[in-house]
């Protein structure tokens, strides 16, 4: 191709930042820590841009150099029998888009963090973790085989754990980190089983080899492929917070807000979507698994959106909205519209990172307050935050011409084209879009409109290190979708397969326009209801809640899912561990065995101790007796003596 693109620098630069700040950060002056922490992602972003320019723009101005560029570490990794796994990175259109999002948005969030975490004691520790996250995330994205991807996959889980529990003195934060880690283990178990199945059936973990083998056998569908795909899906639901494993994400909001923006909105949680897109050939060969993906996605989107309706913590609303939007991406994958899913992944990274950062700016301005009921009237006090948040709200609600409109529309359109199941899921997605618009504008009205509800607060606008990223992300949230799904899809087509072209599909262009119109209309309805509830008749929500107490209670308690898992999984497991493993196995069996060994030694020691009388003459007597015994043994003709007693030894016994 065109020489080396130095892909290895992309993960290793943040890793260097992690090492420097992690090992020496406490002893370095703050400006130096900041410089290292910011340079690492910036340089990685530069390498990504350079690679993208060389590979896709410079060489072939028309986009779409189809062959992926692969960079392999010359030392190899695992060579066991027929199994060869290398440290190799792949740059194709898919990983290119992901890398731009990860390093680009990641860099912006690093800048934001400088302002947000300025007063924190663990400043260097925070940035070393953030750099560590980028190291693992870029490894995950660049990996060209499932095992290396799994390394990154586990690594981002670790970074997420460290950052969710960043304020570990707070019990709720430490617990949330633990919960995120444990719930993710369940998904990782699925990923691992899926990998074993891939290895057993394909003999390789390299994505391109698996795809090639599947393309050679077009008739091979279902069966073991479905099982493999479902296992991988389980992994994806863990990492991407889908039903039934979404419960860790709302709790993960205990971490610092920039972390929520970077890890729990823009990048890490989309790893599941990315993984499905990477292995999409497998899913294409299993229609059942694809339907499951679509149903899981649509169900999660709707389910999480309903919970978001009644949350009062500003970050929790955003957390449930993230789960809901990830559901859209899964729906996109499930209807085989992978490029639409990745498109939504990208625009979502822009506007959801922006939403979190703006929320962080609000929280920062109010001195740590997260309850929306106490906010209000902030539009005059924090104008920059207000306007960028507005752009993000419009984008996530799917208004034309903001970024979210294009990507959400692409997913809904693709769903509508996929038979009766697709049409049903389309309506779920449509209702979810209305709910999304409602809860986002609810947040918007409660936070920025009206008057200040709590006189204790003296809100102030955040410093420019925080506002700068907001403005850039606001611009991206507005313009990010203008590429359009057609161009985006054709750019990705060599990896994810071609998308449906509205011009030739049933219904033609007019259907596309009609569906877009319906989507915008639905978003307007959501806005209108929110306007009604929180602007014109502020008493209305309380009355509605009073009219439907049971429904309201179920929603505020998040459908009691945590309680349900607690009662069905955690409690029995805890009881089993305490009583069976703890008391029976540990104390009775293992402890008993240890005690028995000790008792035998003590008891025999107590007997043998009497031998050691300390009396020289008794020692001498034993010595003499021993010598006599040896003599007796040597001198006496034992076989003959024994024969006298009628005993014959084996050797002589003929």
């Amino acid at each position: 191709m065109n020489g080396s693109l130095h892909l290895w620098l992309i993960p290793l630069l943040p890793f260097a930042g992690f090492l420097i700040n992690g090992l020496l950060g406490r002893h370095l002056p703050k400006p130096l820590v900041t410089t290292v922490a910011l340079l690492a992602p910036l340089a990685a972003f530069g390498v990504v841009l350079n690679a993208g320019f060389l590979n896709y723009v410079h060489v072939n101005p028309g986009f779409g150099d189809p062959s992926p560029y692969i960079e392999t570490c010359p030392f190899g990794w695992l060579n066991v029998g027929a199994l060869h796994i290398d440290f190799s990175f792949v740059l194709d259109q898919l990983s290119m888009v992901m890398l731009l999002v990860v390093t680009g948005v990641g860099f912006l969030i690093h800048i934001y963090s400088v302002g947000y975490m300025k007063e924190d004691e663990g400043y260097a520790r925070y940035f070393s973790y953030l750099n560590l996250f980028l190291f693992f995330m870029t490894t995950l994205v660049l990996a060209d085989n499932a095992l290396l991807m799994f390394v990154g996959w586990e690594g981002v889980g670790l970074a997420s754990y460290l950052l969710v529990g960043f304020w570990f003195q707070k019990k709720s934060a430490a617990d949330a980190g633990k919960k995120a880690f444990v719930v993710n283990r369940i998904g990782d178990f699925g990923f691992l089983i899926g990998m074993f199945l891939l290895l057993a059936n394909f003999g390789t973990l390299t994505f391109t080899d698996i795809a090639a083998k599947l393309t050679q056998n077009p008739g091979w569908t279902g069966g073991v492929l479905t099982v493999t795909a479902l296992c991988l899906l389980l992994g994806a639901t863990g990492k991407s917070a889908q039903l039934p494993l979404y419960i860790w994400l709302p709790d993960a909001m205990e971490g610092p807000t920039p972390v929520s923006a970077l890890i729990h909105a823009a990048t890490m949680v989309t790893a599941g979507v990315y993984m499905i897109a990477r292995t999409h050939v497998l899913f294409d060969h299993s229609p059942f698994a694809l339907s499951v993906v679509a149903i899981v996605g649509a169900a999660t989107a709707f389910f999480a959106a309903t919970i978001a309706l009644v949350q009062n913590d500003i970050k929790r609303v955003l957390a449930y909205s993230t789960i809901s939007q990830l559901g859209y991406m899964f729906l996109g994958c499930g209807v085989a519209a992978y490029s639409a899913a990745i498109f939504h992944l990208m625009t979502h990274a822009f506007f959801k990172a922006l939403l979190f950062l703006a929320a962080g700016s609000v929280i920062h301005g109010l001195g740590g307050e997260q309850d929306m009921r106490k906010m209000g009237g902030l539009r005059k006090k924090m104008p920059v935050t207000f306007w960028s948040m507005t752009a993000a709200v419009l984008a996530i609600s799917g208004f034309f011409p903001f970024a979210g409109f294009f990507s959400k529309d692409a997913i809904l359109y693709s769903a509508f084209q996929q038979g009766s199941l697709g049409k049903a899921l389309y309506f779920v997605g449509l209702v979810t879009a209305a709910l999304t618009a409602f809860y986002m504008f609810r947040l918007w009205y409660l936070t920025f409109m009206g008057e200040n509800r709590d006189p204790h607060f003296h809100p102030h606008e955040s410093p420019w290190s925080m506002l700068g990223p907001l403005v850039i992300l606001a611009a991206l949230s507005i313009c990010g979708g203008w590429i359009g799904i057609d161009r985006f899809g054709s750019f990705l087509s060599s990896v994810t397969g071609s998308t449906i072209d509205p011009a030739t599909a049933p219904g033609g262009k007019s259907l596309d326009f009609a569906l877009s119109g319906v989507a915008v209309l639905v978003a307007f309805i959501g806005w209108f209801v929110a306007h009604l509830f929180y602007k014109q008749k502020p008493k209305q929500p309380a009355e509605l809640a009073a009219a439907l107490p049971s429904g309201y209670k179920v929603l505020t308690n998040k459908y009691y899912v945590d309680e349900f898992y607690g009662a069905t999984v955690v409690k029995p497991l805890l009881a089993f561990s305490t009583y069976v493993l703890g008391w029976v196995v540990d104390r009775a069996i293992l402890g008993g065995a240890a005690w028995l060994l000790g008792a035998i030694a003590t008891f025999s020691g107590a007997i043998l101790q009497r031998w050691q009388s300390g009396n020289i003459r008794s020692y001498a007597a034993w010595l003499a007796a021993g010598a006599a015994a040896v003599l007796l043994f040597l001198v006496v003709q034992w076989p003959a003596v024994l024969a006298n007693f009628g005993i014959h030894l084996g050797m002589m016994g003929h």
Partner: protein
Amino acid sequence: MNSLLTNEVPLSWYLLLSAILFSLGVLGFLVKRNLITVFMSIELMLNAVNLSFVTFAHQWHAVKGQIFVFFVMMVAAAEAAVGLAIIIAVFRTRATLAVDRIDLMKL
């Protein structure tokens, strides 16, 4: 018979004497309480062994046995010097030479 005619004491008598002396040494070592007597019993055992060395040397016309005797005597002399020194040291500190009471190694 032959040995009686040549007026020579037979080999087995020497060995028997040696064994008796050795057994007496062991017996003394085991039953006597006084440390010095015990020490003398050891000397007795050494000399019993010396006797059998000399006997065999004479029997086989080999000088090695006699050389061994000198070795043993030399070691015994050195041992007597060290042993008596220890006995004096023990007596000075414990004011007794009864073996039964020198039992600090007991638990």
